[in-house]
């Protein structure tokens, strides 16, 4: 009898506090599995954001920092610049965290080509605070602070972070993925793995955007939320590789 799948050692034994069907849990494991597979749990330092994944520091079994809202790339920069060579550093951030309050920090870290990996969870909403509009909220999407639906006239078109960061030389890898089904999940895993591998080669900043579901604040049961994501988010946020300027050696 052989074990085909079990919980990754990259995760602690803490129970996740996420809502049923929340994507955060899925992405956590992909990151944890990658750390385990690359054998770098012991030399990795992760940075958790403020957002629903604020407790990520309790869930990953590597050393962790909890950053102030949006500042994870700056915190990661501090960590990376003082840690011995061979240390892997990643941030895990939501769309409010990374694409709103943390815009300056992610853009500048990308410009500098900080040797860190950024996992970006785009669920088109502020999950933790109860469903406010994010910069990534879709046009027409109703949230508690866009009660009649986001309009372009008032709030502009949703921001596309992969596209934006790809213009920066220091961002060497940018891919947008989702984990709505097994084929996509496998692709996401590969993207995450590549991002970490490129970091190990000091290539620059690597960025993986995961389109994610927030069943609770979207007001949909998990399966319906996944469907909504496929039907609404993917067309506006096309999946794929946006930047791949460094070879994996």
């Amino acid at each position: 009898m052989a074990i085909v799948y079990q919980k990754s050692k990259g995760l602690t034994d803490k129970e996740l506090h996420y809502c049923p069907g929340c994507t955060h849990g899925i992405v956590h494991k992909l990151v944890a599995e990658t750390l385990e597979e690359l054998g770098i749990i012991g030399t990795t330092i992760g940075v958790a954001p403020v957002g629903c994944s604020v407790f990520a520091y309790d869930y990953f079994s590597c050393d962790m920092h909890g950053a102030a809202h949006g500042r994870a790339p700056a915190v990661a920069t501090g960590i990376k610049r003082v840690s011995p060579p061979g240390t892997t550093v990643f941030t895990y951030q939501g769309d409010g965290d990374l694409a709103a309050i943390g815009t300056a920090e992610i853009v500048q870290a990308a410009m500098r080509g900080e040797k860190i990996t950024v996992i970006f969870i785009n669920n088109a909403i502020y999950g933790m605070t109860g469903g406010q509009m994010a910069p990534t909220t879709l046009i027409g999407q109703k949230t508690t602070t866009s009660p009649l639906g986001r309009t372009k006239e008032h709030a502009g078109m949703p921001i596309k972070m992969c596209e934006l960061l790809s213009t920066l030389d220091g961002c060497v890898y940018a891919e947008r993925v989702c984990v709505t089904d097994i084929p996509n999940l496998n692709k996401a895993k590969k993207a995450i793995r590549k991002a970490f591998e490129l970091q190990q080669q000091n290539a620059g900043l690597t960025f993986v955007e995961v389109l994610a579901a927030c069943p609770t604040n979207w007001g949909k049961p998990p399966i319906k939320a996944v469907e909504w994501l496929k039907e609404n988010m993917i067309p506006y946020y096309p999946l794929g590789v946006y930047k791949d300027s460094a070879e994996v050696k």
Partner: protein
Amino acid sequence: MTNDIIISGFGGQGVMAIGKTLTEAGMKEGKEVSWLPSYGPEMRGGTANCSVVLSDELIVSPIVLEPSELIAMNLPSLIKFEPTVKKGGTIFVNSSVVDQKVTRTDVRAVYVDCIKIAEELGNSKVANMVMLGAYIEAMKNLSTDTIKEMLVHMFTGPKAKLVDLNIEALKRGAACVK
């Protein structure tokens, strides 16, 4: 007279709504009132509760530490709050979900099979109304008419038919109180 009430249960059980209805009814009857949710980390998936105070005097603190009445909509709530209830107080238990009994003997216990009754009425959403009916019947601190008025106010147009359903739920709840 002051009622210090804690209403507690899973998210989605309408715990906050029971509290708000009690508070508003109290206000309409000229009482001093306050409603305070616990807006803590429990929000995500876990247990939610709120404190309601209905009083004839100025309410100094909306925090209820020793409730005169506890409405326990699930087991964790009963376990957590049963010990805090004032001697001589009342505990309302949602017996559809809670399969344990109140162990204290210095309090009154009222068991309400909310979900079953609501399902009998054809709408599981009125389970919290059933509980409310029981509370009012047991405590007699509010008049059912006030609640009925509020319901009429709340459900208008196509939703008006819900008024009767809710009133029926209140009645069925009241019937659970012996």
